[in-house]
């Protein structure tokens, strides 16, 4: 049994230590907001926060999650009130939406570290997140708006 804190609640799952967090979340805990895109830490679709750091759940084994705090898109904020979620809405960022959980989790972690990021910082911190629909220009604009709205909530 693996125990960890998920969005503020202690949960336990019967997962092998080598199972990546992504599949425990999706298949065992029914938390499908965190998406699969590549399984190799190449696309960022599975980004969650582990003790506040953005990590790729698809390559993070459960053995390293044991006892830690995990935040997923479902727990980023009550009623989508995080500045990132507000800014995403204001800029109509999503197209299909599939990559956007990961984008928002990466953006939230970025703003927690850099409350006023410039273009280079955004490029650097967000380049691990692919959006095949091509919402990058809006993501960039929305991150700047989120910074104005208060960075981290």
């Amino acid at each position, binding site marked *: 049994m693996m125990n960890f804190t998920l969005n503020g609640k202690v949960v336990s799952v019967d997962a092998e230590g080598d199972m990546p967090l992504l599949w425990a979340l999706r298949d065992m805990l029914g938390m499908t907001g965190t*998406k699969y895109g*590549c399984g190799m830490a190449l696309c960022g679709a599975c980004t969650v926060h582990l003790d506040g750091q953005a990590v790729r759940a698809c390559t993070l084994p459960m053995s390293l999650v044991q006892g830690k705090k995990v935040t997923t898109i*479902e727990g980023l904020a009550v009623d989508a009130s995080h500045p990132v979620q507000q800014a995403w809405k204001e800029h109509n960022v999503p197209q299909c939406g*599939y990559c956007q959980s990961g984008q928002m989790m990466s953006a939230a972690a970025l703003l927690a570290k850099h409350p006023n990021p410039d273009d280079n910082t955004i490029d650097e911190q967000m380049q691990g997140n692919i959006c095949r629909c091509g919402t*990058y220009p809006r993501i960039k604009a929305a991150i700047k708006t989120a910074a104005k709205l208060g960075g981290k909530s």
Partner: protein
Amino acid sequence: MSQIANVSRRQFLKITGMGATGLVLGGLLPGFRPAWAKAGDAVSELNLFVSIGSDDLVHIICHRSEMGQGIRTGLPQVVADELMADWQKVQVVQGLANAEYGSQNTDGSRSVRRFYQIMREMGASARAMLEQAAANQWQVPLEEVQARDHQVWHQKSGRSLRFGELAEAAAGLTPPAKDQLKLKSPDDFNYIGKDVPIVDMPAILSGQTVFGQDVQLPDMLYASIERTPVVGANVKSVDNSAALKVKGVVDTFVMPEQSEPVLFKPLPGVAVLATNSWAAMQGRKQLRIEWTDSTHSQHDSDAYLDVLKGRVKQQGKVIRSIGDAYAGMMNAVDTFEAGYSVPYLIHAPMEPPAATAVFKDGTCEIWACTQTPQSTQQNVAGALGIEPDKVKVNVTLLGGGFGRKSKPDFSVEAAILAKQTGKPVKVSWSREDEIRHGYYHAAAAMHFAAGMDDTGRVVSWLQRTAFPSISWTFNGTSDEPSGSELDLGFGDLPFALDNLSCEVQKAEAHLRIGWVRSVSNIQHGFAIGSFVDELAHKLDRRPRELWLELLGSDRLVDPEPEGFKYGNYGESKAVFPIDTARIKGVLNLVADKAGVDKPTAKNEAWGLSVHRSFVSYVAVATKVRVDGNKVQVLEMHSAIDAGTVVNPDRVRSQMEGAMIFGLSLAMMGEISVKDGAVVQSNFHDYPLLRINQSPQIHSYIVESSQAPGGVGEPGVPPVAASLCNAIFRAGGKRIRDLPISKHMQV
């Protein structure tokens, strides 16, 4: 708070779902069946697309698949406008597969084009019925009542009734005849032409969306399938003993043998079924499979493309001609020729294909991220040997489609496994599966030649193309491009020429060939757009000037009298002609807005291109910087003339997305094949554009009251040419063989 609600809702599904039969589960997943089905008699159906509850909620069916283009917002927006509904009281319901809706095949940039008028009529018809119901109730002439703001009003007496109060009576009336419908004047539109935010925004922001990969049913098995690396091979033998020892693996199953044509049949392979995705993937790695031989096992994409490049240097089968292009070349004072190529490409939607199926008592229910629920229904029925009406297809959200999800093979896989196991089965494709086992954009070679007279005017034009045809996928025999592919930016060349020869060459297929966003327009837009720019350079003309000269006077082009039977994307040539004025319109708009004629910094330059596809017109200007061998895309401007536009914000977002899709393929897109098998497997070797490579993008929409054209695809074709033209003019290489990453650093 929200996450707790989410978990408990899912647990609720698991608990309640257990006791129910698999076939009613759809009703428990939100959005998968008409909302009124559980609301009982409180909701009244006014027509196939519109139902209204006594609570005043208007339920509008979206029968097309949502994959990021915003159709779940756009079409209901049209209905609500004509209905005079309040958008805040509209609930969008995803339609099941149902032939009554008309075609649900969400591809070809057709949704608004084909259904704009019908959706207006559906809204207007429901509105007329509500007005009639109110007039009946008040015993006043119909002319005296009017729907507005989700109510019907009687001006004279100041009375009003809410839609919810009228719905039941309205539903009992006979819908008005089509020629009796009163459509709104565009001046009175409330929602059409407005930036209505997408209806799925709240769910996306909070991670509550249900995509194909996200469907979960009680007692469900997760399947991961090892498929044949070479098309045409079957499973010869399999050793599953190690796979079965993996914890969580329940069983393995050899998928049915197949033969050509490949159609939408699942590929041969071995499925591993497990209690979770990870176990299925781990078990799959332990399979030991031997494959039979295939006639395609020698296929090598580099060698193949070389063969095609050789063939297009030879005279081919003429599909359209004006005058005598060969004589024209002989008489020309100067000639110029160049060849271009585009490799195989794959869709790579962010969400790989996924489908979940339940088979019970001779009926099958599917949940899938499909662009084509009706063809899913047909193909599943065929594979299971049951009637199509015994297959219920629920369409989830699609995490991107780009044409991949209009092939229902993955739903057929799930259906076969559900029947085999008697349990709900979800088949999730991995990224590797998606890249290695897709329906590929055809590798293509093209050759162009132009002859000029002594004034530098182009007097003769020759163009040839060769690529394996999508038709092969369906007949197993086609060995040259088909007419419907030559329609896409090749046979419809809109230039004013004295002499023209459009020709095709042979190309045998060795992979499943399919349509990828904008299809053959990708290679043809690239080749034509590059060749015009090369000619302009040779003739020392500004590219825009040469484009305008080649396009000639404002006129409607019809390739038919010149021997080419032009399909025009299935649209009427009267309503959607090839209009050179509109091509020139977007070209001038984008060139002026971007300022392509203004001086640029050293090593920086603009590239231009323009292309008509899916009966819309798009021009693109791209600015790059070239440092040594390194290319950086700085800025892109696009202009689209798509006639009437329903949701300008979603059109702009499609254009932004098309620019980035086009950059990905031009800069880095390449699927290569060795020994019949695809070499690439994931984003490290099939890279997609990332945010640090993404330029500033500006999009312009031509204001127009013409009939609505396509939007999802037409932005892609001009991108590669505008980019390569910019690179050359900024001091870089002239790139004739995509992707750019083969020649320069991107």
